[in-house]
């Protein structure tokens, strides 16, 4: 038996160089990153509806003569006190006091008390939405003159559908969103802040953190307070998970 050139399998093998393996790993990672960033744009994804629905109330009325000095915008008059809910039995109308002709202001004609049947019909009409479709009998108020075509401050010429839940979030935060008057008007022009908020399944804001502070501590403090005071409705099922895990970005400007 000649001297064997066999080597033991337990003998040390020459090592594969590490560089190609490392290069391969980097290459694979880069490919995965690239695919994740660029591939989605080649697929048709329906963008989620996340634009809040912003509705601006408009005051329609007789256009004011442009040659007159403007009127001051006044808050709308308080709504008239709602009539008491009709009971099952209509109260008897009090007998009208005898009116002396020619004395005192004219009294409005007495209305008869609605019957049970009329009350039922009205309730049914309200329930079916027909009542709201009735044309308003309100007399135009000459003090409420406005543009015949709507509000000059309107933001859009046509209605646009948005996401109802994010609209609710927008409105709820806006209700508590206060800009401290101690911040000068000039500074307000340049302030902006971005807050990331996570919302729980019950609508509670679980936590929030500033992505970008405004640089004015009083403004940031006011935003903190606004978010703390905000109570949100529970999110719909399809959003609950992402709002809890990913959160929502709130961009604030005064």
């Amino acid at each position, binding site marked *: 038996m000649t001297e064997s050139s066999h080597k033991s399998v337990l003998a040390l093998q020459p090592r594969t160089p590490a560089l190609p393996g490392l290069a391969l790993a980097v290459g694979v990672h880069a490919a*995965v*990153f690239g695919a*994740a*960033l660029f591939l989605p744009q080649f697929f048709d994804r329906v963008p*989620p509806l*996340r634009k*809040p629905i912003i509705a601006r109330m408009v005051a329609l009325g007789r256009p004011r003569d*442009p*040659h*007159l*000095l*403007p*009127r*001051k915008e*006044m808050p709308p008059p308080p709504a008239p006190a709602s009539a008491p809910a009709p009971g099952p039995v209509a109260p008897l109308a009090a007998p009208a006091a005898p009116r002396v002709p020619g004395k005192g202001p004219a009294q409005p004609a007495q209305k008869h008390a609605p019957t049970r049947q009329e009350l039922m019909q009205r309730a049914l009409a309200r329930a079916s939405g027909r009542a709201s479709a009735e044309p308003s009998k309100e007399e135009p108020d000459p003090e409420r003159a406005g543009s015949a075509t709507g509000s000059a401050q309107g933001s859009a010429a046509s209605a646009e559908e948005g*996401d109802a839940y*994010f609209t609710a*979030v*927008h409105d709820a*935060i*806006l209700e508590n*969103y*206060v*800009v*401290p*008057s*101690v*911040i*000068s008007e000039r*500074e307000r022009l340049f302030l902006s802040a971005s807050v*990331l908020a996570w919302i729980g399944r019950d609508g509670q804001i679980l936590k929030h953190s500033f992505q970008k502070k405004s640089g004015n501590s*009083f403004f940031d*403090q*006011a935003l903190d307070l*606004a978010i703390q005071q905000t109570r949100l409705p529970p999110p719909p099922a399809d959003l609950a998970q*992402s709002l809890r*895990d*990913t*959160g*929502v*970005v*709130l*961009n*604030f*400007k*005064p």
Partner: protein
Amino acid sequence: MILLLALLLAADRPVIDLAGGRVQAYPLAMARPLGAQEVSVAVESVLSQDFERSGLFKLLDPASFLAPASEGLTQIDFLKWQAVGAQGLVKVSCDAPGAEIKCDLRLYDVAHGQELLHGNYSAPRASQRQIAHRFGDDVVRFFTHEPGVFQTRIAFVRETEAGKQIIAADWDGANPQPLTGASINLLPAWTPDGKSVAFTSFRDGGGAHIYTVDAATRQVRPLVLMGDFATGAAWAPDGLRFLFSASLDDNTDVYLSQADGSAGRRLTDARGIDISATWSPDAKRVAFVSERAGTPQIFTMSADGTDVRRLTFQGNYNQEPAWSPKGDLIAFSGRDEHRTFDLYTVAVEGGKVTRLTQNAGTNEKPSWAPNGRYLLFSSTRGGKRQLWVMQPDGTNPRPVTSEHLGASDPAWGPLLPAK
């Protein structure tokens, strides 16, 4: 991979833009004064009035305070102040060991339990109000980075049985001091250094002429004795020139003169009345009232009288323009369709007119605070004509004077030079 996941999640986050938050006064608690009560309470009272009139702060009701009245200047239970809704807290402690009073005044941030301002002030007893005004101005400057006006002075016309006299007073109407006797004196205008007041007077019996009175010595000297009608001095911001209106050859025009009244030069020459000139803050343009369009309207022109432009086109009687120190607005009084004079502003760029007062008596003669944050004006909303102050959007109107027969023609003095 974690980074990738984070990137993907961030890209998928919904974004909500929020703008148009309600501008609301800053909730401020004025703690019960410490130290010598008589002086401390007086200083705290002036300071509270300054803050309330400023419109910047909402003073909380002391009845709601949870912290004990004896709480010191520095050992503060901020949770108790937070619980009543305070965001800022002011502590006042004054002592009057002799003829002078000394006050320690502090401002705290309640949320962070942090001292924001601390000042030690002293003044003669007679000037204790000035201590409050000084600290108030410091607080305003701290928050807004703009000068406060609590130490400024105003001038106005007091109605008396014997006539009308020029009065100088603090910004809140306190310390009124007559500068003239009671002939017919009108339209005061402070010089930019705040040392004297020009005014229109019929004192010499030869018509209306412009005089000036030294605010310290009350010495009166004539400034413009041109013709038989010279009125309405308006000083340039540099104090070296002033505008006025004079009537020569049956035509009233705007003139420009040197500070001593010499070298008067006519700037307008249209038929009809040109009057009530006011400088832009950079002194490059002048706003004035002219009847050249048939009815009194606000016009502007270059300071040399060229480049005349009509600014108001609404209403048929617009008068008394006052150019804001920030330069963007001109306040004026205008007569509306109900024949009532009210205050308006018109944007220098674009000419948008905004109404400031409505259904509150007659409102006239607007005068801007030197920081542009307030308008002083005369109003009959309380019965007699008195001076009121409000913010330039017409909110937070507050009475300034309570003169027996009335007050009119307000003129807000300049800011004091920084010490």
